[in-house]
């Protein structure tokens, strides 16, 4: 118990300690500060591997539970734990933060401030994925928001103020909606913040249909903004375009996953009835985002905007996979629950895969931007001649985004699409059409940027080959893209038991209320 508390707390707070450790160093010692910060992110990643070491993929319940009093008067506890849903994302966070830190050498101004905010951000993200107390979750959610605001607003591009405030306000709207929902649950459950207890309460039918529906809508909008799903996505292209490269990596690699994670961890378990009520909406929004994002990506000329829209498209698969919960209209019993499990697993896998491929794509854009200071895809070309290693690695990462088999993007995309037919053939067919559009915009981009006889933009002399640090980041991302692609079972294995458990409890929660509101009164108030 204590070991677990120490390990999980270390995973969360090691970066914070790192942030304060930086204060000790001389303000001019940039290199030393970067190395220190990198050391802390590596140590954090090592911690996440330690968590994986202690993790058992066979256990159905939450593991490594920690419960320490924080504000016991209000029933707020320091509750931590991991399961199959959070475990892979914790690993992803550790990895992406480490790589983003390695990509942070390009930040030359206010280095200490940057590094400290970066590390605080990592704490916030880890906290979101590990905490099991709604209040704690909310606190970490907000903790993550501020550093991000400053990281975009201070170290960003020309329109950084606009992008930062847009990011901040969008996310804040989501937070406020989440806060309302949180209080709704708190006061309807006998003042409980424990997510596990709340979900058990919901499984027993403890929350009324109306409460569940309204709370689900609030939570869903909050998380859909983060995901981001159409029509809440327009903060993303701006934030990405203006954010510095490493921050874009984190934004795409980790932050977007919080939307999907929030739906799986909070919105659905706490309001199973609401989730079933909104299943069609989730699938519809997901499918629309897939197609819409792909079309929008095709029309972009700014490389980063293009990748940002591809994220909208790719995260649409996550919503699709999560939402395909089909029930019998008369009995309320689950139909094809194996396909739904497949959808959820594939959706989570898609989050991981997208974390690797989109972080990689932003990194690759960043490498170019550091050299020639522009991102217009029409003004590149000929990079296969000038930077062959870069071109090879960039092509691999693009192909991972394209959903090429044996690379990370394939299993998630195809998995969600395959499982979707059992929910709705029409939706499945539309989402499958995304593969054509994706191939279109990615190959067209590769052609314009990498191929061709000569480089067409400014500063051709600056296009020097990648240095060792950049190569290392790109190679690590490629390796992970291959591992996830060739052996997806390594990650799917972690999720499997939890997903089965999740779908069953959701089904129970739905069936408890499905018979009508009459039973609800009996079950209320334990």
């Amino acid at each position, binding site marked *: 118990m204590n070991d677990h508390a120490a390990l999980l707390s270390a995973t969360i707070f090691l970066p914070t300690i790192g942030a304060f450790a930086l204060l000790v160093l001389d303000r001019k010692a940039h290199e030393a500060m970067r190395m220190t910060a990198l050391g802390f992110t590596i140590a954090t990643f090592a911690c996440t591997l330690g968590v994986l070491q202690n993790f058992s993929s066979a256990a159905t319940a939450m593991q490594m539970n920690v419960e320490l009093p924080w504000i016991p008067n209000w029933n707020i506890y320091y509750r931590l734990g991991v399961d199959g849903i959070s475990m892979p994302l914790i690993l992803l966070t550790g990895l992406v933060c480490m790589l983003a830190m390695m990509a942070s050498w390009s930040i030359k101004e206010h280095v200490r401030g940057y590094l400290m905010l970066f590390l605080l951000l990592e704490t916030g993200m880890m906290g979101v994925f590990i905490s099991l107390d709604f209040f704690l979750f909310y606190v970490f959610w907000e903790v993550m928001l501020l550093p991000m605001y400053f990281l975009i607003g201070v170290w960003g591009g020309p329109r950084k103020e606009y992008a930062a405030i847009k990011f901040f306000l969008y996310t804040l709207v989501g937070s406020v909606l989440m806060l309302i929902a949180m209080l709704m649950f708190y006061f309807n459950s006998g003042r409980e913040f424990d997510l596990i207890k709340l979900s058990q309460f919901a499984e027993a039918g403890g929350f009324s249909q109306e409460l569940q529906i309204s709370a689900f809508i609030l939570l869903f909008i909050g998380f859909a903004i983060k995901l981001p799903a159409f029509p809440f996505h327009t903060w993303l292209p701006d934030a990405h375009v203006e954010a510095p490269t490493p921050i874009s990596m984190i934004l795409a690699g980790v932050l977007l996953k919080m939307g999907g994670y929030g739906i799986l961890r909070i919105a659905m378990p706490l309001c199973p009835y609401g989730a079933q009520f909104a299943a069609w909406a989730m699938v519809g929004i997901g499918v629309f985002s897939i197609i819409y994002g792909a079309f*929008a990506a*095709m029309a972009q000329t700014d490389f980063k905007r293009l990748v940002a829209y591809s994220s909208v498209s790719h995260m649409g698969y996550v919503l699709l996979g999560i939402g395909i919960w089909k029930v019998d209209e008369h009995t309320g019993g689950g139909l094809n629950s194996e*396909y739904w499990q497949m959808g959820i697993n594939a959706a989570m896998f898609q989050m991981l895969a997208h974390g690797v491929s989109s972080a990689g794509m932003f990194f690759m854009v960043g490498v170019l931007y550091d050299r020639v200071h522009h991102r217009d895809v029409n003004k590149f070309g000929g990079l296969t001649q000038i930077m062959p290693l870069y071109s090879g690695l960039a092509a691999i990462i693009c192909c991972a985004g394209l959903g090429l*088999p044996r690379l990370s993007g*394939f299993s998630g995309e195809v998995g969600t*699409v*395959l499982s979707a*037919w059992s929910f709705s053939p029409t939706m499945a067919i539309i989402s499958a059409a995304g593969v054509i*559009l994706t191939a279109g915009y990615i190959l067209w981009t590769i052609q314009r940027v990498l191929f061709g006889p000569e480089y067409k933009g400014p500063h051709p002399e600056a296009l020097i080959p990648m240095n060792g640090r950049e190569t290392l980041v790109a190679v690590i991302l490629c390796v992970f893209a291959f591992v996830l692609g060739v*052996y997806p079972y390594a990650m799917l294995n972690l999720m499997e038991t939890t997903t089965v458990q999740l779908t069953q409890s959701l089904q129970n929660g739905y069936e408890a209320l499905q018979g009508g509101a009459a039973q609800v009164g009996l079950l209320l108030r334990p």
Partner: protein
Amino acid sequence: MTLDQYLSTGNTLKWLLGAAWLLPLVGFMIEILGGYWGKRIDPASNGRKTRAAGYIAVGCIGTGCILSTIALFTWGNATHWGHPGGDEHSVALASHADAEDAGHADPAAADHEHAADDAAETAHAHDTEADEAAAIATTPVDDLHTIEHGEGHEHHANDPYAAAFYGSFYRLMTFGSLYIDIDYYIDGLTLVMFVMVTFIATCIHVFALGYMSEELTEDYEDHQVHLSGGRHFHRPGRFYQFFAYFSLFSFSMLGLVIAGNIFMVFIFWELVGICSYLLIGFYTERKSASTAANKAFIMNRVGDFGFLIGLMVLWTYFGTFQFANPSPSGGSPGLFQMLRAPDGSIAVDDAADPRDVTLHNVDGTSLVRGENSKTIPYMLLIVAGLGVFAGCIGKSAQFPLQTWLPDAMEGPTPVSALVHSATMVAAGVYLAGRFYPMFVPEVLLTIAYIGCITLFIGATIALVATDIKRVLAYSTISQLGYMMLALGVGGWIAGLFHLITHAFFKSLLFLCSGSVIHGCHHEQEMTKMGGLRTKMPFTAATMLIGCIAISGLAIPGTFIAFSGYHSKDAILATSLAFVSTNSGHILLFVVPLITAGLTAFYMFRLWFMTFAGQPRDQHVHEHAHESPWVMVAPLLVLSVPAMFVAFGGEAGPLASLMLTSEPAHLAAGVDSTAVMDVTHPGHETIHGYHNTAGMLALLAAASGVVLSYFFYGRKVVDPNAIREQVPGVYGFLVEKWQFDRLYEVLWVQPVHMVARGCQWFDKHVLDCFADGMAKVSVRIAGLDRQFDEAFVDGFVNWLARVTHGTGAVLKNVQTGNLRQYVMFIALGLVGLFGLFLALIPK
């Protein structure tokens, strides 16, 4: 076959073919990494010509060829050449061994002759051949002419699972009871494909050692690419990259063939697609090449979209992707076994609405899940079949997705030979053949018509094309159409038979064209060639062999016939048998028959224009030369199977071997159903039409050749005159039936328009809304400020002012005069008392 035998043989085959499959992947790794780092670690090696990557690639694929041949014989020995149950077919395999001998030992001998002249380049290939010959020589060669035409195959339903082996390499994913594996399914068809692919790939790899040797330089000048300064484009050679991509392709292609489930096929389907993309776009600096590569991949994705829909249906209703489970110990059934009972019938419930199909267990009993037996609506079976076939349309360049293949000729010629004629594009046909049990008659009829349209379109465009590679590309499209047509009219064996023969003669033809292009210094226009037979005699001779083979020529009444004759004869016989019972579909015979004539015409046109007559361009002719031995030897080697691989026709060894994998329901033919009035002919019926079809085909081909001779050989008729008489038709054909323009208007432009629309919507609606909200907030905040300043603050300020004013007035009272204060106090007291007295109740 006992379970032990099954397991041990299966294991041997798994490792043999697994090694043959994975070796090219290992090769790819070494080539790409070694090629990249080799140059950088040792800068002194700059400019040194190393063919190491090529040798590694040849070694890998050559070893693969040997291993697959060994696997073939292992399988043959273990299963009595596909008939483990009885001995009645044992004769067939003896003659099979002979044909393999003919197909492989002879090339080895041919290689031998030239080995002395050859440099070390062919050593690998030579070894391969020799080893193969050795492997073959160890098998007994018995009597070869003992069986009559098709005996033993026509009257008995075949059991395709009797000699098949299934197993798993590793698990990809599981979801509850559902799982997807990387696995293998090995039967006669798999092995034939393996040997064919590895053998042809070996030949082409060797050829490429010579063809790509100009890439062995640090300063390659590309005359087709002009830079902004008017200079030509210079770059380091990419010899190692080429062979790395080639190896990767071989790996992907073999993975596709060995796959034991349709999902794994899909995985490698996409991988061959990306390899094809890399190879078409090999000259990345050429805009035309990278555009063609994009086009190829995206059009394939359009097909894969359909494929994916098919997979969804299968996955949802069958819950597995596995083809079949041939294990003697039973177990969970594969797709084929679920759909078809052991005798090959489908259990359609016509009474149900919508029509249902009941699924089976391995033993033919109905499959029960939960309380009900598992069913699939018949309609969805059609959707699944058409979906998977849509993938085949994309990959095999069938109408309406055929336009990518001619553009794919932008790649180097060995690529066209390996990827875009012999193997990858044939994968669509292979899959249609492999997946045959899942196709219901409605789907088959669609396949037949798609094939029929394609073969005609391809052939007509080939009539007017002048680029030597494009003629071959359109011919490939047309021939693939023949295969699809055959599959569609019930000729499973005819279609796959043609797949194999076509692979040999078409790769030969492409290599010959490569030799011509190499010899003419990258001149591809036939209008600048002519009279080359004296300059390159070997190429001319082998290409003539290829032309005869593809045209399907033979000498009637004798056994002298090249491979193409046998397979095309089989196709036409099947379609004649088909239309004789389904007279409404007469076009399915007439069109391919006419096209057989067209085929002969354009192929001989190609040969005459290139090799015969007088040189049309003196400059090209003067510099033309025969290719080096490393390129000529593969031509000679390949010309042998191009002639003899189909020896014996449908009764011959190759066909017999493939027939062991034929789905059970085909031998007797398929009767029409209440809904679908189409009958598929059985073996016996087809056999009855062999002679008629053969003669008609021969007649058509011969007239094509004769016409071609008059047009381009003797030049008694001037093609230009005809061209001028029908300018509309000519222009239509030269413009490739306007498909490219049509798709541009129909798809490409609308997609870009919608894309721009989405961007506009984002910018002008969603962002406008968000920004508008922000503006409204700011405006409200402004009002709030005004209110605050005018009212709230105003009130407070007023209050302050009043207080202040009052204070100012009152301060006059503050005089500091004691007497005045005492008076105030006294007055106050009096006043208070007055108040008390007035207010206190009495």
